[in-house]
Protein backbone atom coordinates (compact mmCIF):
# COMPACT_ATOMS: atom_id res chain seq x y z
CA UNK A 1 0.00 0.00 0.00
CA UNK A 2 1.09 3.58 -0.53
CA UNK A 3 1.09 4.17 3.21
CA UNK A 4 4.30 2.12 3.54
CA UNK A 5 6.58 4.87 2.24
CA UNK A 6 5.37 7.69 4.54
CA UNK A 7 5.43 5.23 7.40
CA UNK A 8 9.08 4.41 6.74
CA UNK A 9 10.13 8.03 6.26
CA UNK A 10 8.31 9.11 9.41
CA UNK A 11 9.70 6.15 11.32
CA UNK A 12 13.29 6.89 10.36
CA UNK A 13 12.87 10.61 11.01
CA UNK A 14 11.49 9.87 14.47
CA UNK A 15 14.26 7.32 15.03
CA UNK A 16 16.99 9.83 14.21
CA UNK A 17 15.70 12.26 16.83
CA UNK A 18 15.46 9.48 19.40
CA UNK A 19 18.93 8.20 18.50
CA UNK A 20 20.51 11.60 19.13
CA UNK A 21 19.00 11.60 22.61
CA UNK A 22 20.29 8.15 23.50
CA UNK A 23 23.70 7.88 21.86
CA UNK A 24 25.68 10.04 24.32
CA UNK A 25 24.03 8.37 27.29
CA UNK A 26 25.01 5.00 25.89
CA UNK A 27 28.60 6.04 25.24
CA UNK A 28 29.07 7.42 28.75
CA UNK A 29 27.63 4.28 30.26
CA UNK A 30 29.84 2.02 28.16
CA UNK A 31 33.02 3.75 29.34
CA UNK A 32 32.27 5.15 32.78
CA UNK A 33 29.57 2.68 33.88
CA UNK A 34 27.58 5.68 35.08
CA UNK A 35 23.93 6.15 34.21
CA UNK A 36 23.89 9.90 33.76
CA UNK A 37 20.54 11.58 34.49
CA UNK A 38 22.14 14.99 33.90
CA UNK A 39 22.41 13.92 30.25
CA UNK A 40 18.93 15.39 29.83
CA UNK A 41 20.25 18.75 31.07
CA UNK A 42 23.13 18.72 28.58
CA UNK A 43 20.59 17.99 25.86
CA UNK A 44 18.46 21.02 26.71
CA UNK A 45 21.46 23.27 27.42
CA UNK A 46 22.80 22.40 23.97
CA UNK A 47 19.44 23.41 22.56
CA UNK A 48 19.36 26.71 24.45
CA UNK A 49 22.91 27.62 23.43
CA UNK A 50 22.26 26.75 19.79
CA UNK A 51 19.11 28.88 19.74
CA UNK A 52 20.87 31.78 21.42
CA UNK A 53 23.86 31.81 19.05
CA UNK A 54 21.58 31.15 16.08
CA UNK A 55 19.33 34.02 17.14
CA UNK A 56 22.33 36.32 17.39
CA UNK A 57 23.52 35.24 13.93
CA UNK A 58 20.08 35.85 12.44
CA UNK A 59 19.79 39.30 13.97
CA UNK A 60 23.31 40.11 12.76
CA UNK A 61 22.12 39.29 9.24
CA UNK A 62 24.44 36.33 8.66
CA UNK A 63 23.62 33.78 5.96
CA UNK A 64 21.12 31.13 7.09
CA UNK A 65 23.52 28.48 5.81
CA UNK A 66 25.78 29.41 8.71
CA UNK A 67 23.13 27.86 10.99
CA UNK A 68 24.63 24.44 10.36
CA UNK A 69 28.14 25.18 11.64
CA UNK A 70 26.53 27.11 14.49
CA UNK A 71 24.64 23.98 15.63
CA UNK A 72 27.93 22.09 15.72
CA UNK A 73 29.88 24.87 17.40
CA UNK A 74 27.20 25.27 20.09
CA UNK A 75 27.45 21.60 21.02
CA UNK A 76 31.24 21.78 21.10
CA UNK A 77 31.07 24.87 23.30
CA UNK A 78 28.75 23.21 25.82
CA UNK A 79 30.94 20.10 25.86
CA UNK A 80 34.17 22.07 26.35
CA UNK A 81 32.73 24.20 29.14
CA UNK A 82 30.75 21.59 31.05
CA UNK A 83 32.25 18.18 30.21
CA UNK A 84 35.66 18.23 31.96
CA UNK A 85 34.32 20.43 34.75
CA UNK A 86 31.35 18.27 35.73
CA UNK A 87 33.38 15.09 35.37
CA UNK A 88 36.15 16.37 37.65
CA UNK A 89 33.86 17.90 40.28
CA UNK A 90 31.06 15.37 40.63
CA UNK A 91 31.09 12.34 38.37
CA UNK A 92 34.62 11.22 39.25
CA UNK A 93 33.63 10.56 42.86
CA UNK A 94 30.92 8.15 41.90
CA UNK A 95 33.03 5.67 39.94
CA UNK A 96 32.63 2.21 41.40
CA UNK A 97 29.92 3.40 43.81
CA UNK A 98 26.46 1.77 43.94
CA UNK A 99 24.24 2.58 40.99
CA UNK A 100 21.62 4.19 43.23
CA UNK A 101 24.20 6.72 44.34
CA UNK A 102 25.35 7.51 40.81
CA UNK A 103 21.81 8.03 39.65
CA UNK A 104 21.09 10.32 42.58
CA UNK A 105 24.22 12.46 42.11
CA UNK A 106 23.39 13.00 38.46
CA UNK A 107 19.71 13.49 39.34
CA UNK A 108 20.73 16.23 41.79
CA UNK A 109 22.77 17.88 39.03
CA UNK A 110 19.75 17.61 36.78
CA UNK A 111 17.55 19.42 39.32
CA UNK A 112 20.13 22.18 39.74
CA UNK A 113 20.51 22.62 35.97
CA UNK A 114 16.72 22.77 35.54
CA UNK A 115 16.44 25.87 37.70
CA UNK A 116 19.63 27.44 36.33
CA UNK A 117 18.25 27.15 32.80
CA UNK A 118 14.99 28.72 33.93
CA UNK A 119 16.85 31.62 35.53
CA UNK A 120 18.93 32.22 32.40
CA UNK A 121 16.46 31.51 29.60
CA UNK A 122 13.05 32.11 31.18
CA UNK A 123 10.02 29.87 30.75
CA UNK A 124 8.84 30.74 27.24
CA UNK A 125 9.85 28.57 24.30
CA UNK A 126 12.83 29.63 22.18
CA UNK A 127 13.21 29.00 18.46
CA UNK A 128 15.68 29.42 15.66
CA UNK A 129 14.40 27.68 12.56
CA UNK A 130 16.68 29.18 9.89
CA UNK A 131 18.26 25.78 9.21
CA UNK A 132 14.85 24.20 8.59
CA UNK A 133 13.61 27.05 6.40
CA UNK A 134 16.68 27.27 4.19
CA UNK A 135 16.54 23.59 3.28
CA UNK A 136 12.91 23.64 2.10
CA UNK A 137 10.62 20.65 1.60
CA UNK A 138 10.25 17.54 -0.59
CA UNK A 139 7.21 15.51 -1.50
CA UNK A 140 7.49 11.79 -0.84
CA UNK A 141 4.57 9.45 -1.36
CA UNK A 142 2.11 12.35 -1.61
CA UNK A 143 3.15 13.88 1.69
CA UNK A 144 5.33 16.95 2.17
CA UNK A 145 8.41 16.40 4.34
CA UNK A 146 11.02 18.82 5.59
CA UNK A 147 14.39 18.28 3.96
CA UNK A 148 15.81 18.95 7.42
CA UNK A 149 14.12 15.74 8.65
CA UNK A 150 15.88 13.81 5.89
CA UNK A 151 19.18 15.48 6.77
CA UNK A 152 18.84 14.30 10.38
CA UNK A 153 18.42 10.70 9.23
CA UNK A 154 21.65 11.00 7.25
CA UNK A 155 23.43 12.67 10.19
CA UNK A 156 22.41 9.87 12.54
CA UNK A 157 24.04 7.36 10.18
CA UNK A 158 27.16 9.55 10.03
CA UNK A 159 27.38 9.60 13.84
CA UNK A 160 27.04 5.81 14.13
CA UNK A 161 29.78 5.28 11.56
CA UNK A 162 32.09 7.93 13.06
CA UNK A 163 31.77 6.53 16.54
CA UNK A 164 32.58 3.08 15.23
CA UNK A 165 35.63 4.42 13.40
CA UNK A 166 36.68 6.36 16.49
CA UNK A 167 36.46 3.33 18.74
CA UNK A 168 38.01 0.79 16.41
CA UNK A 169 40.56 2.70 14.36
CA UNK A 170 42.02 5.54 16.40
CA UNK A 171 44.51 5.61 19.27
CA UNK A 172 41.95 7.31 21.54
CA UNK A 173 39.39 4.63 20.77
CA UNK A 174 41.85 1.88 21.62
CA UNK A 175 42.73 3.60 24.89
CA UNK A 176 39.04 3.86 25.74
CA UNK A 177 38.42 0.21 24.94
CA UNK A 178 41.42 -0.80 27.04
CA UNK A 179 40.15 1.17 30.02
CA UNK A 180 36.67 -0.28 29.58
CA UNK A 181 38.06 -3.81 29.44
CA UNK A 182 40.20 -3.50 32.55
CA UNK A 183 40.84 -0.16 34.28
CA UNK A 184 43.46 -1.53 36.66
CA UNK A 185 45.59 -3.26 34.07
CA UNK A 186 45.37 -0.19 31.80
CA UNK A 187 46.72 2.00 34.55
CA UNK A 188 49.63 -0.34 35.21
CA UNK A 189 50.34 -0.21 31.48
CA UNK A 190 50.76 3.55 31.78
CA UNK A 191 47.37 4.67 30.44
CA UNK A 192 46.06 7.79 32.09
CA UNK A 193 42.62 6.38 32.91
CA UNK A 194 41.47 9.62 34.49
CA UNK A 195 42.08 11.48 31.28
CA UNK A 196 40.33 8.81 29.26
CA UNK A 197 37.26 9.06 31.52
CA UNK A 198 37.26 12.83 31.23
CA UNK A 199 37.50 12.69 27.44
CA UNK A 200 34.80 10.03 27.15
CA UNK A 201 32.46 12.00 29.40
CA UNK A 202 33.09 15.14 27.37
CA UNK A 203 32.29 13.31 24.14
CA UNK A 204 29.07 12.18 25.83
CA UNK A 205 28.21 15.77 26.74
CA UNK A 206 28.99 16.81 23.17
CA UNK A 207 26.64 14.19 21.74
CA UNK A 208 23.89 15.21 24.17
CA UNK A 209 24.30 18.90 23.35
CA UNK A 210 24.46 18.08 19.65
CA UNK A 211 21.19 16.16 19.94
CA UNK A 212 19.56 19.14 21.61
CA UNK A 213 21.01 21.59 19.10
CA UNK A 214 19.91 19.51 16.10
CA UNK A 215 16.34 19.35 17.44
CA UNK A 216 15.95 23.14 17.69
CA UNK A 217 15.37 24.03 14.01
CA UNK A 218 12.11 22.08 14.02
CA UNK A 219 11.17 21.85 17.67
CA UNK A 220 12.64 24.74 19.60
CA UNK A 221 13.39 24.47 23.29
CA UNK A 222 11.24 25.05 26.35
CA UNK A 223 11.30 24.01 30.02
CA UNK A 224 10.72 20.29 30.48
CA UNK A 225 12.65 19.28 27.36
CA UNK A 226 15.45 17.75 29.41
CA UNK A 227 13.12 15.68 31.60
CA UNK A 228 11.33 14.41 28.51
CA UNK A 229 14.61 13.52 26.82
CA UNK A 230 16.19 11.68 29.70
CA UNK A 231 13.55 9.06 30.33
CA UNK A 232 13.23 8.31 26.61
CA UNK A 233 17.02 8.12 26.42
CA UNK A 234 17.06 5.61 29.29
CA UNK A 235 14.48 3.45 27.59
CA UNK A 236 16.31 3.39 24.26
CA UNK A 237 19.69 2.79 25.87
CA UNK A 238 18.29 -0.12 27.88
CA UNK A 239 16.54 -1.67 24.87
CA UNK A 240 19.78 -1.53 22.90
CA UNK A 241 21.71 -3.21 25.68
CA UNK A 242 23.39 -0.50 27.73
CA UNK A 243 26.69 0.65 26.33
CA UNK A 244 26.11 -0.59 22.76
CA UNK A 245 26.16 2.23 20.19
CA UNK A 246 24.81 0.03 17.40
CA UNK A 247 22.28 -1.33 19.85
CA UNK A 248 21.09 2.19 20.62
CA UNK A 249 20.75 2.87 16.90
CA UNK A 250 18.67 -0.26 16.32
CA UNK A 251 16.61 0.46 19.44
CA UNK A 252 15.94 4.00 18.19
CA UNK A 253 14.69 2.59 14.89
CA UNK A 254 12.42 0.09 16.65
CA UNK A 255 11.03 2.69 19.06
CA UNK A 256 10.66 5.28 16.28
CA UNK A 257 8.82 2.85 14.02
CA UNK A 258 6.62 1.58 16.83
CA UNK A 259 5.54 5.11 17.71
CA UNK A 260 4.83 5.94 14.09
CA UNK A 261 2.80 2.78 13.59
CA UNK A 262 0.88 3.62 16.76
CA UNK A 263 0.13 7.14 15.51
CA UNK A 264 -1.12 5.75 12.21
CA UNK A 265 -3.20 2.87 13.54
CA UNK A 266 -3.78 3.22 17.29
CA UNK A 267 -2.97 6.78 18.41
CA UNK A 268 -4.03 6.13 21.99
CA UNK A 269 -1.04 3.84 22.47
CA UNK A 270 1.62 6.21 21.15
CA UNK A 271 2.90 7.55 24.49
CA UNK A 272 3.37 4.10 25.95
CA UNK A 273 5.22 2.56 22.97
CA UNK A 274 8.83 3.16 24.17
CA UNK A 275 8.00 1.50 27.48
CA UNK A 276 6.01 -1.30 25.93
CA UNK A 277 8.92 -2.05 23.60
CA UNK A 278 11.31 -1.91 26.55
CA UNK A 279 9.10 -4.25 28.55
CA UNK A 280 8.87 -6.81 25.77
CA UNK A 281 12.56 -6.64 24.85
CA UNK A 282 13.76 -6.95 28.45
CA UNK A 283 11.40 -9.84 29.16
CA UNK A 284 12.73 -11.72 26.13
CA UNK A 285 16.34 -10.54 26.34
CA UNK A 286 17.13 -9.55 29.95
CA UNK A 287 20.25 -7.55 28.97
CA UNK A 288 18.78 -5.71 25.99
CA UNK A 289 19.12 -6.46 22.29
CA UNK A 290 22.92 -6.34 22.05
CA UNK A 291 23.78 -6.72 25.72
CA UNK A 292 25.43 -9.74 27.25
CA UNK A 293 25.40 -11.01 30.80
CA UNK A 294 28.25 -9.67 32.85
CA UNK A 295 30.46 -12.13 34.64
CA UNK A 296 29.17 -12.77 38.13
CA UNK A 297 31.56 -12.38 41.00
CA UNK A 298 32.42 -15.32 43.16
Amino acid sequence: MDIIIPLLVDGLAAASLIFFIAVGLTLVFSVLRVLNVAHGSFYSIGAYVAVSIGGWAASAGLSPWLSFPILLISAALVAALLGPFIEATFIRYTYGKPEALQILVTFALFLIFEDLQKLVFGVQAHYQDAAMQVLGVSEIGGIIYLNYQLLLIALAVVVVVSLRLLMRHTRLGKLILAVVADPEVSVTLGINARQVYSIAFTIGVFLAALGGALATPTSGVAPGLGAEAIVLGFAVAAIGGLGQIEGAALAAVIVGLSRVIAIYYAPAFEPVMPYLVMLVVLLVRPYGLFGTAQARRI
Partner: protein
Amino acid sequence: MRIALLLALAALFVAFPLAFPWLAFVFTLVISKGFAALGVAVLLRAGLISIGHALFYSLGAYTVAYLSRGAGVTDLILQLAGAVAVSSLVGLIIGLFMVRYRGIFFAMLNLAVSMVFFTLLSKLYALTGGTDGVRIGTPTLFGTTIERDTLESILLYGGLVLAFGVGYLVHRYLKSPMGEALPAVETNEIRLEYLGIAVPRVLLAAYVASAGLAGLGGAMYGLLVGHVSPELAYWTISGQLVLVAVLGGIGGVVGPFVGAFFLEIIRSFAVIYFDNIWNLIIGAGLLIVIFFLPRGLYGLIERATQRGPRR
Protein backbone atom coordinates in the same frame (compact mmCIF):
# COMPACT_ATOMS: atom_id res chain seq x y z
CA MET B 1 20.05 5.43 73.51
CA ARG B 2 18.45 4.55 70.22
CA ILE B 3 15.01 4.10 71.79
CA ALA B 4 15.35 7.47 73.52
CA LEU B 5 16.30 9.05 70.21
CA LEU B 6 13.27 7.52 68.50
CA LEU B 7 10.96 8.71 71.24
CA ALA B 8 12.45 12.19 71.01
CA LEU B 9 11.84 12.22 67.27
CA ALA B 10 8.28 11.01 67.79
CA ALA B 11 7.65 13.69 70.44
CA LEU B 12 8.90 16.33 68.03
CA PHE B 13 6.60 14.87 65.45
CA VAL B 14 3.58 15.21 67.71
CA ALA B 15 4.47 18.62 69.11
CA PHE B 16 4.92 20.62 65.92
CA PRO B 17 1.50 20.00 64.34
CA LEU B 18 -0.14 21.00 67.62
CA ALA B 19 1.61 24.36 67.39
CA PHE B 20 1.24 24.75 63.62
CA PRO B 21 -1.86 22.99 62.29
CA TRP B 22 -0.85 23.07 58.63
CA LEU B 23 2.18 20.97 59.49
CA ALA B 24 -0.17 18.10 60.37
CA PHE B 25 -0.74 17.62 56.66
CA VAL B 26 2.95 17.78 55.84
CA PHE B 27 3.82 15.37 58.65
CA THR B 28 1.18 12.86 57.60
CA LEU B 29 2.60 13.10 54.11
CA VAL B 30 6.00 12.33 55.64
CA ILE B 31 4.68 9.12 57.17
CA SER B 32 3.01 8.13 53.92
CA LYS B 33 6.16 8.74 51.88
CA GLY B 34 8.22 7.13 54.63
CA PHE B 35 6.34 3.84 54.22
CA ALA B 36 6.88 3.86 50.46
CA ALA B 37 10.52 4.87 50.77
CA LEU B 38 11.02 2.12 53.36
CA GLY B 39 9.79 -0.30 50.72
CA VAL B 40 12.30 1.07 48.24
CA ALA B 41 15.01 0.91 50.91
CA VAL B 42 14.38 -2.79 51.52
CA LEU B 43 15.25 -3.45 47.87
CA LEU B 44 18.17 -1.02 47.98
CA ARG B 45 19.73 -3.19 50.69
CA ALA B 46 20.01 -5.89 48.06
CA GLY B 47 21.52 -3.35 45.66
CA LEU B 48 18.33 -3.26 43.63
CA ILE B 49 17.18 0.22 42.65
CA SER B 50 13.59 0.48 41.53
CA ILE B 51 12.60 3.50 39.42
CA GLY B 52 9.07 2.17 39.35
CA HIS B 53 7.68 1.96 42.85
CA ALA B 54 5.29 4.81 42.14
CA LEU B 55 3.26 1.99 40.57
CA PHE B 56 2.57 0.45 43.98
CA TYR B 57 2.30 3.83 45.67
CA SER B 58 -0.41 4.96 43.26
CA LEU B 59 -1.98 1.51 43.25
CA GLY B 60 -2.53 1.86 47.00
CA ALA B 61 -4.27 5.20 46.51
CA TYR B 62 -6.36 4.01 43.57
CA THR B 63 -7.37 0.88 45.47
CA VAL B 64 -8.77 3.05 48.25
CA ALA B 65 -10.55 5.20 45.67
CA TYR B 66 -12.03 2.13 44.01
CA LEU B 67 -13.02 0.51 47.31
CA SER B 68 -14.87 3.59 48.53
CA ARG B 69 -16.53 4.57 45.24
CA GLY B 70 -16.94 1.36 43.29
CA ALA B 71 -17.19 -1.36 45.92
CA GLY B 72 -18.80 0.56 48.76
CA VAL B 73 -16.14 -0.40 51.28
CA THR B 74 -16.02 2.72 53.42
CA ASP B 75 -14.23 1.47 56.54
CA LEU B 76 -10.80 3.02 56.98
CA ILE B 77 -9.16 -0.14 58.31
CA LEU B 78 -10.60 -2.28 55.52
CA GLN B 79 -9.48 0.24 52.93
CA LEU B 80 -5.91 0.26 54.24
CA ALA B 81 -5.85 -3.53 54.45
CA GLY B 82 -7.30 -3.80 50.97
CA ALA B 83 -4.69 -1.46 49.54
CA VAL B 84 -1.87 -3.44 51.14
CA ALA B 85 -3.36 -6.72 49.92
CA VAL B 86 -3.83 -5.53 46.34
CA SER B 87 -0.40 -3.97 46.04
CA SER B 88 1.28 -6.99 47.62
CA LEU B 89 -0.54 -9.29 45.22
CA VAL B 90 0.45 -7.20 42.21
CA GLY B 91 3.96 -7.05 43.69
CA LEU B 92 3.99 -10.84 43.83
CA ILE B 93 3.00 -11.17 40.17
CA ILE B 94 5.45 -8.54 38.91
CA GLY B 95 8.09 -9.74 41.36
CA LEU B 96 8.09 -13.22 39.80
CA PHE B 97 9.58 -11.59 36.70
CA MET B 98 11.70 -8.99 38.46
CA VAL B 99 13.78 -11.36 40.59
CA ARG B 100 15.69 -12.45 37.49
CA TYR B 101 17.06 -8.94 36.97
CA ARG B 102 19.89 -7.01 38.60
CA GLY B 103 21.39 -3.55 38.45
CA ILE B 104 20.37 -1.14 35.74
CA PHE B 105 18.11 -3.64 34.04
CA PHE B 106 16.12 -4.15 37.23
CA ALA B 107 15.72 -0.38 37.43
CA MET B 108 14.69 -0.14 33.79
CA LEU B 109 12.18 -2.99 33.89
CA ASN B 110 10.53 -1.40 36.91
CA LEU B 111 10.46 1.89 35.03
CA ALA B 112 8.87 0.22 32.02
CA VAL B 113 6.16 -1.55 34.01
CA SER B 114 5.31 1.56 36.00
CA MET B 115 5.11 3.73 32.89
CA VAL B 116 2.77 1.25 31.22
CA PHE B 117 0.66 1.36 34.38
CA PHE B 118 0.79 5.18 34.34
CA THR B 119 -0.57 5.20 30.79
CA LEU B 120 -3.33 2.76 31.70
CA LEU B 121 -4.38 5.03 34.58
CA SER B 122 -4.74 7.97 32.19
CA LYS B 123 -6.50 5.96 29.47
CA LEU B 124 -8.98 3.82 31.39
CA TYR B 125 -11.25 6.76 31.93
CA ALA B 126 -14.26 4.80 33.17
CA LEU B 127 -12.23 3.06 35.87
CA THR B 128 -9.78 5.77 36.92
CA GLY B 129 -11.34 9.11 35.99
CA GLY B 130 -8.58 9.82 33.46
CA THR B 131 -5.90 12.43 33.93
CA ASP B 132 -7.94 14.69 36.21
CA GLY B 133 -8.00 11.86 38.67
CA VAL B 134 -10.66 10.71 41.08
CA ARG B 135 -11.89 11.93 44.44
CA ILE B 136 -11.52 9.85 47.58
CA GLY B 137 -14.25 10.48 50.12
CA THR B 138 -13.87 10.51 53.88
CA PRO B 139 -14.07 6.92 55.16
CA THR B 140 -15.96 5.58 58.16
CA LEU B 141 -14.37 3.96 61.20
CA PHE B 142 -15.94 0.86 62.77
CA GLY B 143 -19.27 1.78 61.21
CA THR B 144 -19.39 5.38 62.44
CA THR B 145 -19.01 8.36 60.17
CA ILE B 146 -16.14 10.66 61.00
CA GLU B 147 -15.44 14.27 60.20
CA ARG B 148 -12.67 15.28 57.85
CA ASP B 149 -10.71 16.84 60.73
CA THR B 150 -11.02 13.65 62.77
CA LEU B 151 -9.74 11.63 59.84
CA GLU B 152 -6.70 13.89 59.59
CA SER B 153 -5.89 13.39 63.28
CA ILE B 154 -6.35 9.65 62.93
CA LEU B 155 -4.04 9.57 59.93
CA LEU B 156 -1.34 11.55 61.72
CA TYR B 157 -1.39 9.92 65.16
CA GLY B 158 -2.63 6.53 64.02
CA GLY B 159 -0.08 6.72 61.22
CA LEU B 160 2.67 7.37 63.72
CA VAL B 161 1.66 4.35 65.78
CA LEU B 162 1.39 2.31 62.59
CA ALA B 163 4.85 3.50 61.57
CA PHE B 164 6.25 2.19 64.84
CA GLY B 165 4.42 -1.12 64.48
CA VAL B 166 5.29 -1.68 60.84
CA GLY B 167 8.78 -0.34 61.42
CA TYR B 168 9.30 -2.92 64.14
CA LEU B 169 8.07 -5.72 61.88
CA VAL B 170 10.35 -4.61 59.05
CA HIS B 171 13.21 -4.35 61.53
CA ARG B 172 12.60 -7.95 62.63
CA TYR B 173 12.38 -9.02 59.00
CA LEU B 174 15.67 -7.34 58.15
CA LYS B 175 17.34 -9.12 61.08
CA SER B 176 15.90 -12.49 60.09
CA PRO B 177 17.85 -14.84 57.79
CA MET B 178 15.66 -13.75 54.86
CA GLY B 179 16.49 -10.12 55.60
CA GLU B 180 20.16 -10.62 56.35
CA ALA B 181 20.51 -12.35 53.01
CA LEU B 182 19.64 -9.10 51.20
CA PRO B 183 22.97 -7.27 51.62
CA ALA B 184 24.67 -10.55 50.77
CA VAL B 185 22.87 -10.58 47.41
CA GLU B 186 24.60 -7.32 46.59
CA THR B 187 28.06 -8.28 47.78
CA ASN B 188 28.15 -11.84 46.53
CA GLU B 189 25.16 -13.59 45.15
CA ILE B 190 26.86 -16.78 44.04
CA ARG B 191 28.27 -17.43 47.48
CA LEU B 192 24.75 -17.25 48.86
CA GLU B 193 23.64 -19.90 46.41
CA TYR B 194 26.52 -22.13 47.44
CA LEU B 195 25.31 -21.74 51.00
CA GLY B 196 22.01 -23.22 49.88
CA ILE B 197 19.98 -20.05 50.03
CA ALA B 198 17.44 -19.61 47.24
CA VAL B 199 18.19 -16.08 46.08
CA PRO B 200 15.01 -15.69 43.98
CA ARG B 201 12.89 -16.53 47.00
CA VAL B 202 14.77 -14.02 49.15
CA LEU B 203 14.28 -11.33 46.53
CA LEU B 204 10.65 -12.20 45.88
CA ALA B 205 9.86 -11.83 49.58
CA ALA B 206 11.62 -8.47 49.60
CA TYR B 207 9.80 -7.35 46.48
CA VAL B 208 6.38 -8.28 47.85
CA ALA B 209 7.18 -6.58 51.17
CA SER B 210 8.33 -3.44 49.39
CA ALA B 211 5.23 -3.39 47.20
CA GLY B 212 3.00 -3.78 50.25
CA LEU B 213 4.79 -0.96 52.07
CA ALA B 214 4.50 1.33 49.06
CA GLY B 215 0.80 0.43 48.77
CA LEU B 216 0.24 1.27 52.44
CA GLY B 217 1.94 4.63 51.95
CA GLY B 218 -0.12 5.28 48.84
CA ALA B 219 -3.37 4.42 50.63
CA MET B 220 -2.51 6.92 53.36
CA TYR B 221 -1.66 9.48 50.70
CA GLY B 222 -5.01 8.98 48.99
CA LEU B 223 -7.00 9.28 52.21
CA LEU B 224 -5.04 12.34 53.26
CA VAL B 225 -5.13 14.28 50.01
CA GLY B 226 -8.64 13.12 49.13
CA HIS B 227 -7.80 12.99 45.44
CA VAL B 228 -5.55 10.84 43.28
CA SER B 229 -4.44 11.36 39.70
CA PRO B 230 -2.13 9.40 37.39
CA GLU B 231 0.78 11.75 38.01
CA LEU B 232 1.25 9.80 41.26
CA ALA B 233 2.45 6.88 39.10
CA TYR B 234 4.86 8.95 37.00
CA TRP B 235 8.54 8.05 37.06
CA THR B 236 9.51 11.28 38.85
CA ILE B 237 7.58 10.09 41.92
CA SER B 238 9.51 6.81 41.79
CA GLY B 239 12.72 8.81 41.58
CA GLN B 240 11.62 10.85 44.57
CA LEU B 241 11.06 7.70 46.64
CA VAL B 242 14.60 6.51 45.89
CA LEU B 243 15.86 9.97 46.71
CA VAL B 244 14.05 9.93 50.06
CA ALA B 245 15.42 6.51 50.95
CA VAL B 246 19.02 7.42 50.18
CA LEU B 247 18.66 10.86 51.74
CA GLY B 248 17.57 9.34 55.03
CA GLY B 249 19.87 6.37 54.87
CA ILE B 250 19.03 2.79 54.02
CA GLY B 251 20.90 1.29 56.95
CA GLY B 252 17.90 1.08 59.26
CA VAL B 253 14.14 1.35 59.37
CA VAL B 254 14.09 4.95 60.59
CA GLY B 255 16.20 6.37 57.76
CA PRO B 256 13.48 6.59 55.07
CA PHE B 257 11.15 8.39 57.47
CA VAL B 258 13.88 10.86 58.36
CA GLY B 259 14.58 11.33 54.66
CA ALA B 260 10.91 11.97 53.93
CA PHE B 261 10.79 14.42 56.82
CA PHE B 262 13.72 16.44 55.57
CA LEU B 263 12.59 16.43 51.95
CA GLU B 264 9.12 17.68 52.85
CA ILE B 265 10.46 20.34 55.21
CA ILE B 266 13.05 21.55 52.71
CA ARG B 267 10.43 21.56 49.99
CA SER B 268 7.86 23.41 52.10
CA PHE B 269 10.29 26.14 53.05
CA ALA B 270 12.03 26.39 49.69
CA VAL B 271 8.63 26.83 48.05
CA ILE B 272 7.69 29.58 50.50
CA TYR B 273 10.91 31.56 50.48
CA PHE B 274 12.66 30.64 47.24
CA ASP B 275 9.80 29.74 44.95
CA ASN B 276 11.98 30.24 41.88
CA ILE B 277 14.79 27.86 42.79
CA TRP B 278 13.34 25.10 44.92
CA ASN B 279 14.57 22.42 42.51
CA LEU B 280 18.05 23.86 42.84
CA ILE B 281 17.89 23.79 46.62
CA ILE B 282 16.73 20.18 46.75
CA GLY B 283 19.45 19.20 44.27
CA ALA B 284 22.15 20.97 46.26
CA GLY B 285 20.88 19.45 49.51
CA LEU B 286 20.98 16.01 47.95
CA LEU B 287 24.58 16.50 46.79
CA ILE B 288 25.61 17.62 50.26
CA VAL B 289 24.08 14.55 51.86
CA ILE B 290 25.61 12.18 49.32
CA PHE B 291 29.11 13.60 49.52
CA PHE B 292 29.33 14.41 53.21
CA LEU B 293 26.85 12.09 54.93
CA PRO B 294 27.37 8.68 53.38
CA ARG B 295 25.05 7.00 55.90
CA GLY B 296 22.27 9.45 55.21
CA LEU B 297 20.69 11.99 57.50
CA TYR B 298 19.69 9.42 60.07
CA GLY B 299 23.34 8.43 60.31
CA LEU B 300 24.08 12.05 61.17
CA ILE B 301 21.44 12.21 63.89
CA GLU B 302 22.64 8.93 65.34
CA ARG B 303 26.23 10.12 65.37
CA ALA B 304 25.33 13.38 67.05
CA THR B 305 23.60 11.55 69.88
CA GLN B 306 26.26 8.88 70.30
CA ARG B 307 29.09 10.82 71.84
CA GLY B 308 31.76 8.85 73.61
CA PRO B 309 33.20 5.45 72.78
CA ARG B 310 31.53 3.49 69.98
CA ARG B 311 30.55 -0.10 70.33
